[in-house]
């Protein structure tokens, strides 16, 4: 964590009040986003996203598994984030555990929707192979390699990119007697590309003083009183909301933050989509 002198703190807060942050950005401007897909060939899908100095990697591994008894026609998705000590020495061993679990929970909330499956970014019923017996288990792992603020947004973008890069092998099910486990044949050619148009983007608004900024660096985030992360999908509907930070917020402020993030989400989603498409095109050119 960067230590800040009193003068630096005043500088950051004053700048935000005047809509001119320390790196010259306005309050609602994102840092340049850099997306690279297919960085981990062994995984079913992967992506790396750089947001200024924040660097995260997301990977998707798919395994065959048994669906949960309460939802036999749905697959399972497990999201886990790991903060590597290369980002901060404080993350070594159990130090990063709290932050990792907070990020994992926030990602799950934003991407998996309500219990009945409504509003989910990923359609779980598309992951089912044989109802009640076999389904795909998706393990989405996020890794924080370098941390300079706004981890949740970067992880959300990385998961979106990794899922659009994911290719699930085609499954042939040999018919079997009703109580036997059916035999499954995985073909070597891949296809089932994921439809990621439903996946929302996560926007974190950090409140410093009376104003909110988007995409804060770790210095700016150390001055925050609270932060609200809103996940908005392409249709402009809110798919998840998490409030972080210790200070209380007036309800009208929260509603205002929601409308600001909805406004910003359009630009962000378009930017992300074009970056991901460019990255995929790049990857294909390599072969």
């Amino acid at each position, binding site marked *: 964590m960067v230590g800040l002198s009193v003068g630096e703190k005043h500088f950051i807060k004053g700048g935000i009040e005047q809509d001119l942050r320390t790196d010259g950005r306005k309050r609602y401007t994102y840092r340049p986003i850099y997306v690279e897909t297919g960085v981990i060939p062994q995984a079913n899908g992967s992506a790396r996203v750089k947001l200024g100095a924040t660097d995260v990697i997301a990977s998707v591994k798919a395994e065959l598994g048994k669906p949960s008894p*309460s939802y036999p026609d749905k697959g399972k998705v497990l999201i886990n984030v790991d903060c590597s000590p290369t980002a901060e020495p404080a993350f070594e061993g159990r130090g990063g555990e*709290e932050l990792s*679990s*907070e990020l994992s*929970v926030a990602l799950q*909330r934003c991407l*998996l*929707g*309500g*219990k*009945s499956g*409504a*509003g989910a970014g990923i359609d779980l019923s598309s992951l089912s192979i044989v109802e009640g017996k076999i389904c795909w288990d998706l393990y989405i792992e996020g890794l924080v390699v370098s941390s300079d603020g706004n981890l949740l947004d970067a992880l959300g973008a990385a998961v979106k990119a990794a899922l659009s890069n994911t290719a699930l092998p085609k499954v042939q099910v040999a018919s079997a007697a009703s109580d036997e486990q059916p035999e499954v044949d995985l073909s070597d050619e891949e296809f089932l590309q994921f439809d990621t148009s439903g996946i929302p983007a996560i926007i974190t608004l950090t409140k410093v003083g009376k104003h909110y900024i988007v995409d804060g660096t770790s210095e700016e985030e150390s001055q925050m009183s609270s932060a*609200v992360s809103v996940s908005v*999908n392409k249709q402009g*509907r*809110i*798919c*998840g*909301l*998490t*409030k*972080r930070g*210790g*200070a*209380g*917020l*007036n*309800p009208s402020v*929260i*509603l205002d933050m*929601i*409308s600001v993030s*909805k406004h910003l989400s359009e630009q962000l989603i378009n930017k992300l989509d074009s970056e991901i498409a460019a990255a995929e095109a790049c990857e294909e050119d390599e072969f």
Partner: protein
Amino acid sequence: MAGKGAATPATYSPSLTTVKGKKKPPIFADDANWVRSDGRHFHQCRPAFLRTNAVNSASGSAYAEFGNTKVIVSVFGPRESKKAMMYSDVGRLNCNVSYTTFATVHRNQGSDSKELSSMLYKALEGAIILESFPKTTVDVFALVLESGGSDLPVIISCASLALADAGILLYDLVAAVSVSCLGKNLVIDPILEEESHQDGSFMISCMPSRNEVTQLTVTGEWSTPKISEAMELCLDACSKLAKIMRSSLREPLSASEE
């Protein structure tokens, strides 16, 4: 366990007038005329039973029973911080939520207690005046005896009552309420069955007198007008719940005066 019939405070029900006229047509799955299984209106919360001083050996404690959700919270402290902790000129808060093995329908299903512990911490940290007990730690231990839906809001409300019972300085009591979205309906204080079918959930914990929200989580797909509506509903319910919490804090005093 005190009987439910004994001294139950009056039920608190957010006024239906916030719905601006129309009574919501019950559209839920296949049921044409869906009524909630316990007979409540969509905007009616379960009757709240709150008692302080449930555990004698703790600095402060509270027991809450909202329908089938039963929670007991003990507060210990302020007491000396653990060995290797750094000096801190503000107090520390340590929260722990655990489920008993018989709390859920299937044994040992309450496995997300780590997540609940951190959410409880976030809901309470904004309400406690940490500067009043530097170098020490306050431990909040919540035990869910029976999980009947809407667990976290009950845990938060009960914990803030226990903190008040322990004499910890608070900016205000924290009341929490959750709303479920089922189809087009907003249903407040859902039970377990309603929660498992929900399309979205909205949980808010706030300090009513200061009109400040300490914790807000939304899952599922929501449109902005729906969020405003849910927020209004919840804030109204929270302020009424806070009044009931205050009266349950005063009860032991009035009993001893007699």
